[in-house]
């Protein structure tokens, strides 16, 4: 059976009898050490077709490829309008964030589930994402949306301000933000000050990219 690592595109050949039939199995890519999950549950027996490899068990399933206009998060936006996606379980926190982002002139959408968030991201590039690390019952260390964001190419990722809502790390802990690939960490207990936290985070984010964006504009990249 031939498996392709989604991270480094290495081709691996594995003997069929080494894989458990009708089950999902994990292996490590010998080249880049990425964990690859081979799911044989829906694979017919004796099939010779190549298997599907899913790194870290994440199948970024945002639905089928059929276009459905009703799934677009926004019908119309001003050209300069900023948009935000909230991935949070607590309705009270969602309400507070909505108020703050409304004042900051963001058009906000709220995701119902990880799948819904991925579907919304398929149709729209958000300027801001606020993600609770336990959103939709996720394991905080294996949150599907955070993994998806972490794997975005840099030309896309640098245009999104990502805030992590957490109970584990201190607000504005830059080292945790660095490790989790987010722009800012917001501890849930500080949600009452989220307006000031986000404002400061955005200021730092804009300052961080100012030189790059100016240079990119000058050379005509953006």
């Amino acid at each position: 059976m031939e498996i392709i690592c989604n991270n480094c595109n290495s081709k691996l050949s594995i003997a069929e009898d080494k894989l458990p039939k009708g089950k999902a199995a994990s292996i490590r890519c010998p080249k880049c050490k990425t964990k690859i999950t081979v799911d044989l549950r829906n694979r017919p027996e004796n099939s010779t077709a190549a298997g599907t490899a899913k790194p870290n068990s994440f199948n970024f399933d945002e639905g089928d490829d059929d276009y459905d206009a009703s799934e677009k998060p926004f019908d119309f936006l001003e050209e300069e309008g900023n948009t935000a996606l909230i991935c949070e379980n607590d309705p009270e926190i969602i309400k507070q964030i909505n108020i703050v982002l409304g004042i900051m002139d963001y058009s906000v959408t709220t995701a119902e589930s990880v799948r819904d968030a991925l579907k919304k991201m398929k149709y729209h590039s958000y300027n801001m994402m606020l993600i609770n690390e336990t959103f939709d019952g996720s394991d905080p260390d294996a949150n599907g949306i955070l993994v998806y964001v972490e794997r975005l190419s840099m030309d896309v990722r640098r245009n999104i301000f990502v805030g992590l809502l957490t109970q584990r790390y201190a607000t504005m802990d830059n080292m945790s933000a660095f490790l989790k690939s987010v722009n800012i960490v917001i501890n849930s207990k500080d949600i009452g000050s989220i307006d000031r936290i986000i404002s400061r985070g955005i200021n730092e984010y804009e300052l961080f990219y100012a030189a790059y964006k100016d240079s990119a504009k000058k050379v005509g990249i953006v």
Partner: protein
Amino acid sequence: MSDQNKYTCNEYRQEMILLSLRLRLNKENLPESEKELIQKQIQQIEIAMDMI
């Protein structure tokens, strides 16, 4: 996929960690044991980054 598309937060993080380790390695009066540990870490990152 172009090379630019392969550059993600993970690559950025590895580069920054590598940079900080190299800076630490160049510090004066670094104990030999710490120096060895840092060199080992640098080697591991360089392998992961396909640099060696």
